[in-house]
């Protein structure tokens, strides 16, 4: 018997006797479940992972060797989440978590200072290949992807700077599904950007409703895992490391910002870097818009 350590509030609400689903995909540190009926993706994550929307962190170091496969049945019985006979997770002890984005400060002097270091750090330690251009792309495909990402993230950024609303949805949708990785770089960038749009008092919060309308048109453009993450971000729900980083860059010291940034950069392969650049893009827009 394995215990769930902590879970996202919404997920814990869903885990009742009527919950059923199938295993969608299995990785070393994460296992995705597609719920029946609602077609939503939920994630079981090992201790190595941070808290995130729709995610339950369980007391295991690895999901290897459990023999869990795609399409295995998932059900709930007596407060236990079951995956066939292979994994049994006790829910009651799980502590609850919900993403709380910080408030955007009235005075952004600290943000401006932290921003310089953070950008330098990403420049130095961020992973290329996605939004961050690789010095030497391994293929024409990668080069072309980089070019398109560059072009389209710039268009979206300028749209926000000009405070225009008409093209936002189209430009955002143009990024979805673009780029390497399980969560394509374009998606990751949007996750970062959406998070900033959802900060309370964010100068660019006028785009909030547009995030939600973007979600309605993009489902076929990306895979279910990435879509779920994007959808949550469109409602202001992102994983803990992103939350912490935003808090640190707005209110923390440079050292704290870099520490928190390291954790974001560690997400996936290039995903963390792409998310971080989405965050930076949103924050830069905020600085400019906020005067």
């Amino acid at each position, binding site marked *: 018997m394995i215990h769930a350590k902590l879970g996202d509030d919404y997920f814990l609400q869903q885990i009742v006797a009527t919950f059923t689903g199938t295993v969608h995909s299995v990785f070393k540190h994460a296992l995705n479940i597609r719920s029946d009926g609602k077609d939503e993706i939920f994630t079981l994550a090992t201790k190595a992972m941070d808290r995130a929307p729709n995610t339950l962190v369980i007391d295991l170091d690895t999901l290897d060797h459990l023999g869990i496969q795609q399409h295995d049945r998932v059900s709930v019985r007596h407060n236990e989440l079951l995956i066939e006979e292979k994994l049994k997770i006790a829910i009651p002890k799980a502590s609850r978590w919900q993403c709380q984005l910080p408030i955007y400060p009235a005075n952004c002097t600290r943000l401006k200072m932290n921003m310089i270091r953070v950008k330098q750090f990403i420049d130095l330690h961020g992973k290329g290949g996605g939004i961050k251009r690789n010095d030497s792309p391994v293929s024409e495909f990668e080069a072309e992807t980089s070019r398109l990402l560059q072009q389209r993230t710039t268009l979206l950024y300028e749209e926000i700077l000009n405070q225009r609303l008409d093209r936002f949805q189209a430009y955002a949708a143009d990024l979805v599904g673009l780029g390497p990785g399980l969560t394509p770089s374009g998606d990751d960038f949007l996750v970062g950007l959406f998070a900033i749009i959802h900060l309370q008092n964010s100068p660019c919060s006028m785009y909030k409703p547009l995030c939600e309308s973007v979600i309605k048109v993009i489902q076929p453009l990306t895979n279910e895992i990435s879509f779920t993450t994007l959808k949550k971000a469109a409602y202001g729900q992102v994983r803990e490391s992103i939350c912490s980083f935003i808090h640190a860059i707005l209110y923390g010291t440079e050292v704290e910002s870099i520490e928190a940034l390291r954790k974001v950069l560690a997400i996936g*392969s290039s995903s963390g870097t792409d998310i971080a650049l989405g965050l930076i893009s949103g924050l830069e827009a905020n600085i400019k818009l906020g005067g």
Partner: protein
Amino acid sequence: MSIKVVIKRNTYFDSVSLMSLSTKANQIEGVEQAIIGMGTEMNKGVIRNVGLMTPEVEEATAGDLMIIVKTANADQTESAYLAVEELLINKDKAQAKSDIKYATIDSAAQGIPDANFAVISVNGAFAVREARKALENDLHVMLFSDNVSVEDEVELKTLAHEKGLLMMGPDCGTAIIGNTGLCFANAVRKGNIGIVAASGTGSQEVSVRIHDFGGGITQLIGTGGRDLSKEVGGMMMLDGMKALEADEATKVIVLVSKPPEASVEKKVLAQIKECSKPVVVYFIGGNEEAVVAAGGQFAKTSKEAALKAVLLAGIDEAGINKRALNIPLVEEVRAKLAPEQKYIRGLFCGGTLCDESMYLAMEKLDNIYSNIQKNPDFLLKDINVSQEHTFIDFGDDDFTNGKPHPMIDPSSRIERFLQEAKDPTVGVIVMDFVLGFGSHEDPVGVMLPAIIEAKKFAEKEGRHLEIIGYVLGTDLDTPNIDEQVEKLVDAGVTHASSSTNAGLLAREMVLKGENHE
């Protein structure tokens, strides 16, 4: 041109695997281009743009994994695809392998085919054997351990030279290879300046100054302190220079060392003459004329070395903050010191930092004692008791015997500091604080209570105690330099902006009368 496309329905690999598979797939022999990615509309658009669209790709959906392999000749396609497929299958194996623990370099090198480097820091008595094993397995070596005989060093370096490998050390504490800092190193910008150094803290100092002046580093190759001795003959420095000369990214080369033995200096100078790239030479206390005659750029101080390097590297001089010495401050301190407060006491973790301050002091002051003095007349009689001007390297064997290096455990000099602070003949205490990989997480913090106590004590006795602190580090280090400096300044310590300035400030503050600058 020939293309093979395979679409795997509803197949998900995590991003880390996908990216590394993609990189590896593009390195397979015969492959002109390989794409492994999710079949999203956007990615398909990119594929169309690069002219690889096929009907199969057209049909892929966002949840499908696409594998596209392009080769020049049709007969290579199938085998290239199989090799890519192999990567996908072996992914699981590779993951399982990560759990395996290795006990020997042989087994690790066999089990990790991508391994290309060994960092060895075991006791010197065993280090030679491990280093040899590493070289035999075609691994570049950084040998942190000391207490290795010179014969063994020559043997290892000869083997490495024959195999075309790096043999950094023994007693090599600092290197930056491919932007990865090894052992004691600082987080510095990537750039176009390459360093070869026989001195650990010396090279840290130069790299940090280069970063501060807006420049950046390609590689920092450590050679170990004995490389430029007659016996070793500068093998690693000469090979390192050659490698940097051949390295496209490197535009300027900086050499850092104590002065080489005469025959070795000849060899190094001859190679500088041949070198197609500008070479800045910082041989602490070395001979300017010979370097200049060989076409090298001589630097007297670490700061000058860094400045010359960044200018040669194309950084605009106008934009550099050269951090000039604060002369008014010097005057102010002189006025505060009582006549009997004549002496400097330097308490250092970094050997080269100690050396640099000491050499600067020796230019204008007499009777300078140290535990690392070359001149036996000025070696401290008792390393625990200071004499007149005293400069102590706490990293020297005298103090480390069995204890961790003061950069890891800086607390070792606290007691000595308090002892010096109580000495009424002391005017200035100068100390270094080294940040970066390998170092203590808060070197200023551990010293702070002692500093505050000392200041109070001196005040009570009615004298001014001048403490100069130099923090070796960058804004990218953890903890970062600003945070550490802030702590020092808050405690009333005079912050020196470089190792060179720390030495100059200390010297100038205790100078009296006609020697004033």
